[in-house]
């Protein structure tokens, strides 16, 4: 289990995370939602150890250090691979550094998405690069996989394929945290939704429980964020001067 206690992060005068408490249990598939600048990326980077933070983050009651960092993997739309290496060279790099590297999963995903193994990653399309980032994160053999807007730039068919494949290949104790804006698209995929706003966790719910109550994830998110459906109409009326918009 990953536990966050009073985690805060300030970039100069901007509060990115404000006293965040969160528990991430083994086997969960979590959607992390929030507007741009809400703190999703900072939250993930803090857990993964990429940015320094204040507070405590524990992995099975131990601080996250180089000793146990291999149990966590991270895929990001910023792309953390080496552009000059090919896919197979990356696999070799992961093999050398992570004892848990899952060869079978890597080969299976590479074949499924028909990605070129011997082409430099910088020569691939953005969609292929995103796929490579996710494939490497999933093949590391980590217990906790954090994916930060991994499919920005991929078409909907591609994304849906990925969700299906992902659900099919995950081990029961493998945890995924996925940050995205595509709430409706992932609502059938995630089991838990965490909402973040201005660096604070403002919502945390079980998606199945929501559905049992007849509520959709999108409605829940709108409700928590205090979304005003008539906001657009009011704005247009103000701009155009027409009353019935």
């Amino acid at each position: 289990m990953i536990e966050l206690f009073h985690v805060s992060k300030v970039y100069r005068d901007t509060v990115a995370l404000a006293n965040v408490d969160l528990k991430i249990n083994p086997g969960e598939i979590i959607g992390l939602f929030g507007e741009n600048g809400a703190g999703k990326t900072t939250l993930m980077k803090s857990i993964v150890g990429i940015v320094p933070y204040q507070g405590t983050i524990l992995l099975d009651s131990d601080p996250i250090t180089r000793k146990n960092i291999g149990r966590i993997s991270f895929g990001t739309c910023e792309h953390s691979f080496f552009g000059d290496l090919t896919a197979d060279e990356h696999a070799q790099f992961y093999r050398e550094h992570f004892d848990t590297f899952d060869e079978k999963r890597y080969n299976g995903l590479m074949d499924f998405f028909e990605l070129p193994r011997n082409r430099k990653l910088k020569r691939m399309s953005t969609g292929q690069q995103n796929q490579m980032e996710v494939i490497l994160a999933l093949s590391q053999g980590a217990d906790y996989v954090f994916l930060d807007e991994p499919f920005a730039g991929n078409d909907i068919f591609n994304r849906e394929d990925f969700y299906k494949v992902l659900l099919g290949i995950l081990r029961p104790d493998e945890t995924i945290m996925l940050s995205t804006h595509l709430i409706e698209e992932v609502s059938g995929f995630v089991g838990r939704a965490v909402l973040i706003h201005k660096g604070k966790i403002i919502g945390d719910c079980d998606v199945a429980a929501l559905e049992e109550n007849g509520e959709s994830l999108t409605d829940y998110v709108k409700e928590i964020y205090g979304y005003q459906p008539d906001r657009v109409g009011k704005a247009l009326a103000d701009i155009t001067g027409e009353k019935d918009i």
Partner: protein
Amino acid sequence: MRNKREKAQRRLFSQIAPPKENPWVMLLLGQIFTLGLSVVTFYSYKNRLLTQLYRFFDQNVVFTNKLGYPVGGIIHGGRQIEKLNTLLQGILWWMIIAVTVFIVYAVYYYRVYYQSHAVYLMKRVPDRFEMHRRCLTVPIILTVEAIIIAVILVLYCKYLYYRYTPEMYLPANGTINLWRLFTL
């Protein structure tokens, strides 16, 4: 067994530079650069040192052999040769240039990671020194080589100075001020 050792060696050497960067090319270029600078400096200072010795003997010693080396008798009593420190002033100026170039090497290597966000991956690998080893090994090897060359250079010049200067002409305080060796 041999295969395993070779594999381990290959891995070690492949890890002293960022992926796809050839550390041997950088090492070779760095060594050529260091040696070139130091050899040029050495010849210029060796000549300067020997010229100074010769001039001193020529002006102050009466009996010299054909090479100008003193074979006895003085002379203009009380005269002493210039301090080694003065004669070697600036002999290590090339090290400043060389080390600056090696720092640029390191910056270039770190840039490979930071520019591509591959630093995120490097911060997640279990070996905390992985990235630093890949960025700093080549510059450190070259710097150590430069230091060794510098020490040899200074010691050899010191040897020449003491070898060819009779004791009676040596100045009282012969210690070398390192700082002066770097300043022109």
